[in-house]
């Protein structure tokens, strides 16, 4: 008898092509699907997720940190935290892993056309935003969006991810401004020192015709949102991503629910109006 349906829980074999160290505990893994045709067919949207497998250890969900305009490969910027991430960090270039996805919703970039964009990230939280930043800064899309401001902070200089992009590539693009900060003074650092929310208030970006996107540790998001409110941003102008423990990624295993919503299907991207409608259980 034939199997009744195709199996969405089955990963595709993939290869880690390149490992780019970002910080002491964050690597960006550049991954391609082993099936060349599948790689050509692959499409994802900025903000979407994918499940990575290290066989014998487990599976975990990560945001795809590369832009959909990058068609050659996918990138995942991953902090070494638990079982699967530790195993991933133990792999070498050329290692085989499993990949399934893409999952979840995405940043509504269509609705953002014609607007200025403000990205506010903390630590590894820049990873999901990076997918959209690179997407809007790509030549084919740049004309659709106004000014792009990026405010990004981390605990220390070493903890800043994507250094080449934040210090060189993005500031050199037209119509961009990149502000970086670290939590505490350091000898080699002559940039801004202080927490991200305070820096946001200091820079005081105008709410105007703008969409703000923020991602980082929960405590940072909490205070960033307070700062945004002071600056006059309305809830529907602010987007964030939520993160919960996931196993299946396809709305069956029941663990990433917040009220009636599943973060794997209905998220990870929510605007602040939507977040405020959710029960506070994330």
């Amino acid at each position: 008898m034939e199997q009744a349906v195709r199996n969405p829980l089955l990963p595709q074999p993939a290869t880690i092509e390149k490992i780019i160290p970002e910080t002491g505990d964050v690597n960006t893994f550049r991954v391609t699907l082993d099936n060349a045709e599948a790689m050509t067919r692959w499409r994802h949207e900025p903000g979407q997720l994918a499940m990575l497998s290290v066989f014998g250890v487990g599976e975990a969900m990560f945001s795809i940190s590369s832009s959909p305009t990058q068609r050659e490969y996918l990138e995942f910027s991953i902090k070494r935290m638990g079982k699967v991430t530790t195993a991933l960090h133990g792999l070498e270039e050329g290692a085989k892993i499993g990949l399934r996805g893409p999952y979840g919703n995405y940043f509504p970039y269509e609705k953002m056309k014609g607007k200025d964009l403000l990205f506010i990230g903390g630590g590894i939280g820049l990873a999901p935003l990076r997918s959209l930043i690179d997407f809007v800064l790509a030549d084919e899309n740049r004309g659709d969006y106004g000014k792009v401001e990026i405010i990004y902070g981390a605990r220390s200089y070493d903890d800043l991810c994507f250094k080449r992009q934040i210090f060189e590539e993005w500031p050199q693009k037209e119509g961009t401004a990149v502000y970086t900060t670290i939590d505490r003074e350091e000898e080699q650092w002559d940039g801004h020192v202080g927490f991200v929310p305070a820096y946001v208030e200091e820079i005081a970006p105008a709410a105007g015709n703008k969409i703000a996107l923020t991602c980082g540790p929960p405590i940072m998001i909490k205070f960033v949102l307070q700062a945004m409110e002071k600056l006059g941003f309305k809830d529907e102008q602010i987007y964030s991503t939520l993160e919960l423990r996931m196993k299946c990624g396809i709305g069956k295993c029941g663990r990433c629910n917040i009220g009636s919503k599943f973060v794997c299907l209905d998220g990870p991207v929510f605007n602040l109006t939507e977040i405020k409608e959710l029960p506070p259980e994330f």
Partner: protein
Amino acid sequence: MKQIVDRLRQEAARLLAAGDVAMVIGYAKGTDVARTTPYFATNEEEAQNLTWNPFCTNNLVKYLLDFRFEDTKLAVVVKGCDSKGINRLIYDRQFPRERVVVLGVPCGGLLDRSKVLATIDPGAELQSVEDLGQEFVVRTDHGEFTFAKEQYLLPKCAVCRNPNPVISDVLLGEELPVAEEEKSDTFDDIVEMEALDPAAKSAFWDRHFNRCLRCYACRNVCPACNCRECAFEQAVPGWQQEACWLSKKASVDNNYTFHLIRMFDVTGRCIDCGECERVCPVNIPLRKLYRKVIKDVQELFGDTTPGLNIGDGLPLTSYRKEDPEEFM
């Protein structure tokens, strides 16, 4: 039994009104005639919902652990069997003596719920229960029923050696007499199990463990299971990063591992309150496991019943020169 209920409510109300305790953990009416439910009275009014009858099976001592990191004082209702759990928690520094007021109830035995429900309509309203020594008289709005203890007690109660609480601050009734011959456990059930040949033993446990759902009710109800974080639940087990030493897969081999590890963990600490076996949704005879190690420990180290008093040196946590060492 009415006197005990009245005294319990009075005492609970007094403790709560005086602010001596923040909460009285006891029993309240359950949702069928042969059932009670754990109840947490926090004021005088709620104290009037407390009850006592031969359906008060739950060992409430376990709930103390929910409050172990707070500083409030609590009162808890205990039967003789449960009371040993209090001593155990105090000895293991899991709950300080000064934070608990023990409301002890001399217990004439608990009725087997399933046997009672074969006689009384579950929807009947329980009016009163009288303990006549050899039998209980249960009055309901569906009539009066007499249950001979010999026939209707829970198995663990039939061989009970501690009808009176071994620790209590307030004793809510007259101490019950304990016959001399009831004082030592003959472990008939275990002797019977030991007599089986290995293949029969293995077949017996294979069959029972095979249907374990790994719901962990036995662990969660157990007053001897007091780890803050269970080894079986660690997301990344400390000493083996990659291979979880107990897979979530509820196969018979994993289930053996779970139950046998738990058995060794509670050795010398299990007070034989029987809650594990009562709560098991698939009727695994768990007491047989734990009673086996109680018997072994007694044979190796002398007659030690965990929890009989606070200070007793437990065989597996204390050292004596004369301890057996044939395994060394």
